[in-house]
């Protein structure tokens, strides 16, 4: 920990030799352009000071760097003065690393980690208001049960369902419920935690 570089998540990238795979994709005599590789989904965890405006700083920076956020979930952590964001976005590895490094430049950002390649729990919560009449209610409830969701509100011709799971699981539930008529839906976006004893560590928090 005495080496300042190792405190950064990209220390590995600096220490590593040039990526032979990346070099191989460039034709001879042509310099490859960073960030133009195949895009895929990334999950970033950002640990930030819980202060006014920090969400704006993060969102504004990602927009300014020409990225679309697929989802962003934020809430405070075990420490009330520290918030944690889960950001999902699409891009090639180099481009997403560039976003993460830019995020690091924000004074209120304490830690950024790309957990895309980590074994992880990645869940989101959805509230879904589904049309449910006397004739269809039983069927709706059956589907919800299969997906380990629960009913949190019942009205004469609709129910509110709460479901948690991966984005794909929630997508699948939504697809099944679509036939009954979804009147309203809200999803939190993914929240993530790395499996096992490993934690997203950060150095300290603002006094």
């Amino acid at each position, binding site marked *: 920990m005495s080496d300042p570089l190792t405190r950064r998540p990209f220390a590995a990238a*600096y220490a590593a030799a040039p990526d032979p795979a990346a070099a191989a994709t460039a034709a001879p005599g042509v310099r490859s352009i960073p960030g133009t590789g195949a895009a895929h989904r990334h999950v970033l965890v950002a640990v930030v000071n819980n202060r006014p405006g920090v969400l704006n700083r993060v969102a504004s920076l990602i927009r300014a760097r020409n990225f679309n956020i697929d989802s962003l979930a934020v809430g405070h952590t075990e420490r009330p003065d520290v918030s944690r964001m889960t950001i999902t976005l699409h891009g090639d590895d180099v481009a997403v690393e560039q976003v993460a490094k830019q995020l690091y430049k924000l004074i209120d950002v304490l830690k950024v980690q790309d957990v895309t390649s980590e074994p992880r729990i990645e869940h989101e919560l959805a509230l879904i208001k589904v049309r449910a009449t006397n004739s269809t209610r039983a069927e709706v409830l059956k589907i919800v049960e299969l997906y380990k969701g629960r009913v949190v509100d019942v009205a004469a011709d609709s129910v509110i369902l709460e479901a948690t799971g991966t984005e794909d699981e929630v997508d699948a539930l939504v697809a099944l419920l679509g036939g009954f008529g979804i009147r309203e839906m809200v999803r939190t976006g993914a929240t993530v935690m790395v499996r096992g004893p490993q934690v997203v560590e950060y150095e300290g928090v603002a006094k």
Partner: protein
Amino acid sequence: MTIMRQAPGRHLPGAGTPEAAAVDHARAEMLHEAKPRGRTRIGADVVCEALLRQGVDVIFGYPGGVILPLYDVLGDYPQLRHILVRHEQGAAHAADGYARASGKVGVCLGTSGPAATNLVTGIANAMLDSVPMVAITGNVVAALLGRDAFQEVDITGITLPITKHNYLVRNADDLPHVFAEAFHIARTGRPGPVHIDITKDALQQETRATHPDEAAVLAAIPGFRPTFEGHARQLRLAAKLIDEAARPVILAGHGILLASAWGELRAFAERTQIPVTHTLLGVGAIDETHPLSYGYMGMHGWKHVNRAIQSADLLIALGMRFDDRVTGKVSTYATGAKIIHVDIDPAEIGKNVSVDVPIVGDVGRVLAALIPLVAERRPEDRAAYFAELAEWRRESEARSWHGSGAWRDGLLSADYVVEQIGAATNHDATLVADVGQNQMWVARYAGYRRPNSHISSGGLGTMGFALPAAMGAAIGRPDKETWAICGDGGFQMTMQQLATLVQDQIPVKIAILDNHKLGMIRQWQELFYAGNYHSSHLLGPDYLKLAEAYGIPAFRATTPDEVPTVIEAARAVDGPALIHFLIAEEQNIMPIMPAGKGLSDLIEEWGGADE
């Protein structure tokens, strides 16, 4: 004369320096309990105390409604010189020029609303060129925030993407910490502008809050820990590439100047016998008369420099960021070269080009660590390489140079005018360029020997930069003659600052290179838009009468033999002076790399004639 610069990461001036003495003096002068006129200590006092603690001696500002509480106490701090600008954009550029010339943090000040938005261009300019600056604005009282009050704008929302960090302060007790953090952030690591927006009531509240020490500041910003030392393994990898390279080239950028690393650069280049090229903001990183100085790269760089880069087998990039004006089309950029990239900002590594050996750290410390790791070379070891470079240079420098002082139509040639200013000032003056053709002439032809003697708006390319930035530069380095060299377009954008020069007796010499054109626009229209000269012809006032109206001595030159005479006449003036140079109307700056093309695709001549 050595230039006082603070070591990276230093929070306060080093002991024994004039800055430290000034701070001590200021502290002794501070009256925490009993202010003059028997008043109590309010937020506005805290602002002034904090500025003095940071070694600030000058503020560029303009008063207005909600900032008036600060102006009400400024008179109690005579050590803080206030320069009354004529437009807030000029305040920001002046703080920028002051910072670049002196190496200290520049400070600008304005009220809320339009003053704050006027500062925006100057803040963005400082951001893109990594200039340490603290911009202070007032805002409406906290209770009115968000209610569209008179002269209220969400200025922290506006400056968020163009500052290194910004603050909205609603409570006087927060001011000491915010100011200490702001100066630390502005000057530490990769420098940049920090904006502090203060509500009027925070300036007026009584407070007993004390100023934090450095440890408290660091503890408050755990998310800000720049890396200064290069990684040992990366240094070894870099040394290996350097020792193996047959055609290495150093690319020196603004980082050399920001890190005060010109000594290390020179020692490294001399030990390894590697030619040094520079970016626009890297002008002055090496004495241009040094045998290893090879010249200016990029879109309007010398052909021999771009050729050397394109044929290199190793590029050693030091404190530069591979801007598109430097690389052109990335896919064709130095395709045979490996790249070592040293920068203090990790986000610059791999941003624009992929690199082989990245080193995050302060460029001065990295070079100092690298020097003992690399093999010592003699010039003879690179005889064939140097001979080829010398031949390319002879060929390229012979073009685009009008030693007679006249362009092909017989009118003044701008390259000659700029060269004459450089020679007359013994290459020791601070030359501040505007933006456009004049900027390229200033970068290429003045001849620089001294670090921080060339100031230019690189990243943002802000027309109108020269005059206000030169005001700041002249105050930041009063021991050096200061010139603003502008086109007639840029000068007309910020010429209201002539009054500032007079009122505050700032001895800037202004050279207007007048071609009655927006020269660079005209050049692009000629080369790339089939001569469709829309809106590039520019009327101007009679500049001599204009200067006379302000009481500024002014001179005019229309022929080559008049050029040295008017330069000497302007230099002899005690105070500001202006020279109107009538230059050729259609002279182009050549070579030029067309947009979207590569460094090997330079246009060197047009219409069958060298420009």
